[in-house]
């Protein structure tokens, strides 16, 4: 296969000029695309309200507001380790540390541990009263880790 440099009709100078033009176009295109990406990213970042705390951020953004969110599978870890009635203060702290993921959304109060995310504490209190669950970790306004009340 003939190569451009070997073809007498296309001397190295012409090839070099073409190469420089293509290179300039590539660089210009790269600059343009990265500028657009950057502006879009900055715009999106400016829109997001700054929130602290993983649980709060995640629950509020990924789950419908005003719902009780099902137990995270990570909570089951603690449940397996210590029996239900022996959940110690350390274990509860560990639950708070591990309770990162609303694995599935449910309002089933039979679930032993439940993450709940409501608009405010009043809504959370109403849910507690209505569903026979106890608040075992208050993670933020309207946000709590709940335990089914054992009979």
């Amino acid at each position: 296969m003939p190569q451009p440099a070997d073809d007498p009709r296309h001397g190295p100078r012409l090839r070099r000029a073409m190469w420089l033009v293509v290179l300039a176009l590539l660089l210009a295109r790269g600059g343009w695309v990265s500028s657009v990406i950057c502006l879009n990213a900055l715009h999106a970042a400016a829109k997001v309200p700054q929130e602290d705390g993983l649980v709060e951020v995640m629950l509020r953004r990924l789950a419908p507001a005003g719902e009780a969110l099902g137990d995270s599978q990570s909570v089951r870890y603690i449940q397996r380790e210590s029996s239900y009635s022996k959940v110690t203060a350390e274990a509860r702290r560990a639950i708070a540390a591990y309770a990162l993921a609303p694995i599935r959304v449910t309002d089933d109060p039979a679930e032993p541990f439940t993450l709940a995310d409501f608009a405010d504490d009043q809504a959370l209190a109403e849910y507690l009263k209505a569903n026979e669950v106890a608040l075992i970790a208050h993670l933020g306004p309207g946000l709590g880790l709940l335990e089914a009340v054992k009979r």
Partner: protein
Amino acid sequence: MTVALALLGWLVGVAFGIAAVAWWWPRQANRSRPWLMIVAVGAASGHALTSALYYVWLNSLTHAGLPYEVLEWAVLAAVSLGFWQTHTKASRPASTAPADKSNDSAQARRFTVGSAVAVCVCLVAVLTAVSLIAMIVADPHGRWDAWAMWNLKAKFMYLAGPRWTDLFIAAPHSDYPLLHPSAVARLWVYVGIDDPGGPRLLAWLTLLTAVGMLTAAVTHLRGAVLGAAAGLLLMTTPQVLEQAAAQYVDTTVGLFIAGALALIVTAWQSEQAQARRGLLLLAGLMAGSAAWTKNEGIAFSGMALLALGAFGLRTGVRSAWRDSVAFVLGALPMVACLLSQKLLFAGRTEVIDPGSLDRFLTQLTDLDRHRLIGQALWQVVVHEPEWVGVALAGLLVVVGGLRLDRKTMRGVALVAAVLLGQIGCWYLVYLTTQADLPWLLSTTTDRLFVQLWPGFILLLCLPARRPGVTPSPAGTAGTTDRPS
């Protein structure tokens, strides 16, 4: 402060990797060492090796009460000492002859072009860095898989002490390899707390390493301008940035895939068998690291090994066998970690469980499934790459002159075969999985793209001749007018 400590942890890992790779990288007479490539491969290796070290420590040494930092610093000191001793003993490379005057103007011109390219690429790199930071600010904990799986597993590996293995019950996808959770947990050791800044920084640095790896590899193989173009193309692919900001690990898989392929091609350029095998060992380390990152990396490692053996047969069965052994030896540390995880802790891999034979055969011949998969893959081809950039880079390669000698074509064929083989593996998984196919396609095809994209950019650049290369009389490889 958190970020500074996490950065310190990452830099220690990188220093360890660079020292190890520089120690191992074959020395060839009359050739300067490709430091850019050594640094890139070293950074990637350091990331993988320290992750494996943390996993080994967690498995075996936590009970002995040995703090992880002490172990890591001891290993780093040992490797640095080895590198220092080897480096001081090695003779300096013979000085190259001064360039003749006819090359001076070409050198000066190239300097001007090179400077302009460097300025542009640095500008794009800054914009990319800002974009990624902004994306991370918008999505501070990454997307679902990041916080529900990768970082959750890291929490167990950092916080749960000897009970860290409960992550295989608590977190989803217990079969997924542990490079990333282990690396995040390791950074938290340096920070002293499980701060989300650790995984954020790691996402940022992994993309940086991936861009650096591709740039260094193409620079080493095909010259600095094309290397810069390759890095630029990767940085301006929106999907790559989005996946990195999501704190997903597909960028990491892409980094190791590109690194392994580039090292195989580099190894095949070497005339000396010993140097070739030294580089193939590093390629094996990269492939093993891909396997230790995600299950797709396991498929890649198998594919790369098969291709290495098959393409190596041209040089004789014994040579191909030895090359393959070097590759496997390199992958061994990571494969050992992977095997221990798979055999001792991991559950089954849901996605590739074909179920009964009847079901498997039915799905294999189900035309609707073929159509769905074909459509999804076509959507990736149409929408994911930045096609104008790809076309311009392709044009740059063609106008700059193609290099169609036997060695180059062998490298091109191997890289193409491995990448297509990887797509074939995914196709087979999609075809036979018991998981909901539309859901699986909608959630995974973009990741497949991010994993393979750096490798495809490498493939695009491989047939190029170095800019400024004088064609040889036979019109084949040509000779470079500067040392590689």
